[in-house]
Every structure is written in structure tokens, then in C-alpha cells.
């Protein structure tokens, strides 16, 4: 049985290799994944995260104007926008990563190799964006992306003024 499994692994691997080497690549890899990704360079679209991830208008609709249905629709729309914004960010980053090498004669003065540092930044970004996408898809755009540890019973500093007031209140009630 194990022999058959290993033989299947070997055959599947060879088929995969031949498939990879034969299949031509699309001209623009971003065309299929996220065609709405803005071109990198200007960077102004990055500021869109502020209104997308800001919950104040949904809260205003729900709490002050008492439109819970409208607030719910707005939240759903914002969630969709947040996912698209994160995907666009990822696509733009991938486009940046695909920047081809500049030959040394074209780039005078760039003698330092930042290879490992750049790889670290690339992997860090990939991890963070995947995590953020997961959190937004599951909990929505207004949820804290880093989990809150408020449920952990940590010893808190007591405010001496509050303590004094509480003691005075307890004496008064007696």
C-alpha cells in the first residue's frame, strides 16, 4: 500500500512538473487576480483605508439617526470595500515584488545587497495581509485586527481618588 502511495506521489509530481513547464504564463499576471489594483507610484489610494475602516458613520446612522437596517447595509458594503482594498494592496505589492533587476550600469551606487532584508519585508507583508483579509472576511472591517486581551484578569492600577470616593460612598450608605 505504501509503495502505491509513493509511486502515486512520484507520478503526480512528474505530471505537475511537465504541466508547469508546458503551460504558458499569462501576459499580465494581475489581469486575472485583481484588475482593479491601482498602479503603484502615486500611493494616494492607500489613504482610502481611513474612511473604509472608520466605523463612525455606521455608528452615527445606527445610534443617532436610528436607522439600524441602513447601518447594517453600510457595514456590509464597507466589508466588501475593505476586502477589495486589501486585495488591491496585495496585488500592487506583488507587482512591486515583480520589479525586474536593474542592471548595475543603469543603477550606479547601488552596491549594497538588500536581498535578505527585502525578503523579510515581503514575507512579513504577505503574512500580515493574509491575516488582515481573514479577519475582515470573518469579523468585518470594524473589528480589532489585533485581538483584545481585556478578558485576561490583569492586575490594574487603582486610581487613589476613585478609591477615596468609593470609601466615602460606602461610609455614607452605612
Amino acid at each position, binding site marked *: 500500500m*505504501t*509503495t502505491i502511495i*509513493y*509511486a502515486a*506521489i*512520484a*507520478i503526480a*509530481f*512528474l505530471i*505537475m*512538473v*511537465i504541466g*508547469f*513547464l508546458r503551460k504558458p*504564463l*499569462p501576459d499580465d*499576471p494581475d489581469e486575472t487576480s485583481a484588475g482593479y489594483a491601482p498602479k*503603484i*507610484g502615486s*500611493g494616494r489610494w*492607500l489613504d482610502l*483605508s481611513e474612511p473604509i*475602516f472608520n466605523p463612525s458613520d455606521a455608528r452615527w446612522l445606527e445610534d443617532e439617526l436610528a436607522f439600524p437596517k441602513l447601518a447594517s447595509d453600510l457595514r456590509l458594503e464597507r466589508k466588501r470595500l475593505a476586502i477589495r482594498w486589501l486585495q488591491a*494592496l496585495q496585488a*500592487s*505589492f*506583488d*507587482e*512591486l*515584488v*515583480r*520589479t*525586474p*533587476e*536593474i542592471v548595475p550600469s*543603469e*543603477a550606479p*551606487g*547601488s552596491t*549594497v*545587497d*538588500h*536581498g*535578505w*532584508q*527585502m*525578503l523579510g*519585508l*515581503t514575507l*512579513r*507583508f504577505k503574512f*500580515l*495581509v493574509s*491575516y*488582515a483579509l481573514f479577519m475582515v472576511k470573518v469579523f468585518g472591517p470594524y473589528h*480589532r*485586527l*489585533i485581538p483584545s486581551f481585556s478578558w485576561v484578569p490583569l492586575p490594574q492600577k487603582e486610581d487613589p481618588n476613585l478609591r477615596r470616593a468609593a470609601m466615602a460612598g460606602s461610609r455614607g450608605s452605612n
Partner: protein
Amino acid sequence: MYLVYGFDRSAYRSAYWFYFLISILVEFAVLVEISDHIFQSLPAIRHLGRALTVAISATLALTYILPVILWEQSRRLALLDFALRASVTKVIVLAALFIAARHYGLQIGKSVAGLMLGFSIYLGLNIANLAANKAFHPALYGGIYWIMTPTAYSLCLLVWTVALWDYVPAPSRSTISPVAGEGSESLALELTRFNNQLSKLIDK
């Protein structure tokens, strides 16, 4: 090895194990060489191939290969299993390199593609051969194993010879670099800017 076997049969055993250990090291060296060349044209992920190779090899060496040497009862089976699992590890590394190259839309040059194809054929045949040798009795499969190992090696060398006969440089992408003329420092700055933007969002 055939010559050693023919001329000095008593030295064959020690020569075989020496060859066996050297070949495993050389195979990993080939893997490192392939991984270094795949992402060579993209400075941001130039070391991704080596990082993947080292990380996957180290993880599987500790969790998948080492236990078989420590806990297998029969020495023959332990050595066969060791070679088999080392080959499976190399296949996993190659598959990860293929997937990463595909993800970044890299066009693999003829030379590197040939290196990968030849090595993949060698590893695929090796896995099937070692698994069969482990499953069947040596009296039944020993003769076939004796022929199959050099056959896999010769096939690999044949593909490498064809692929590397004429040097063909790796095709470059037609993308215009947004940081052209400013070197890798600008690219590192751009990567940092993206990371900072995302960190700001996550820390909020």
C-alpha cells in the same frame, strides 16, 4: 561503482556508503543551485528559493527523516527509508519552488527548466524505485534496483545535457520598473512603505 565492484569486491561496501552519503549531499546542492537561479531576476525575492529550500529541508529533516534513523529496527530498512524520505523531501522542495515561481509569474529559462525537469525525473524514478525496493524482498527486486538507479541518473544527465548544451539566458519581463535607476534601496523603501501602511491598519 561498477568498477569497484568488479576489481575489489571487499572495498565495494564501504565505497558504496561513501558514494551514498556524497550523492545525498550533492542532490541537496543541486537543489540549492536551482533555487538560487529561479528568483535571480527579482531582487525583492532573490533569496526566496534558498529560504524555502533551507526551511523545508530543515523542518522535514527533523520531523520526517530523523525519526526513521532513530526508531527503525532493521538497518537495511532504515537506510532505504532514509534515502526514500530524503528524496520525498527534495520533491516537496521542488514542488514548493514551482508553486512560488508560478505565483510570481516567473518565466523559467530553458537552462533552469532543464535542470528542474532532469532532476524531477531522477527524483520521481528514485522514489518509485526505493519504495518498491523497500516493499519487495531483495531477492525479488534487487536486480531491478541495480539497473533502475543508474538508469534514473543517466536520464537526468541526458536531459541536463540537452538543456544546457546551448546557453539561453532567462527571459526577462517587459515590466517597466517604477524605481528604475535608483537601485535596490528604492525598492526596499517601497516595500517598507507598504509594510508600514498595513502595520498602521492592524495596530489601529
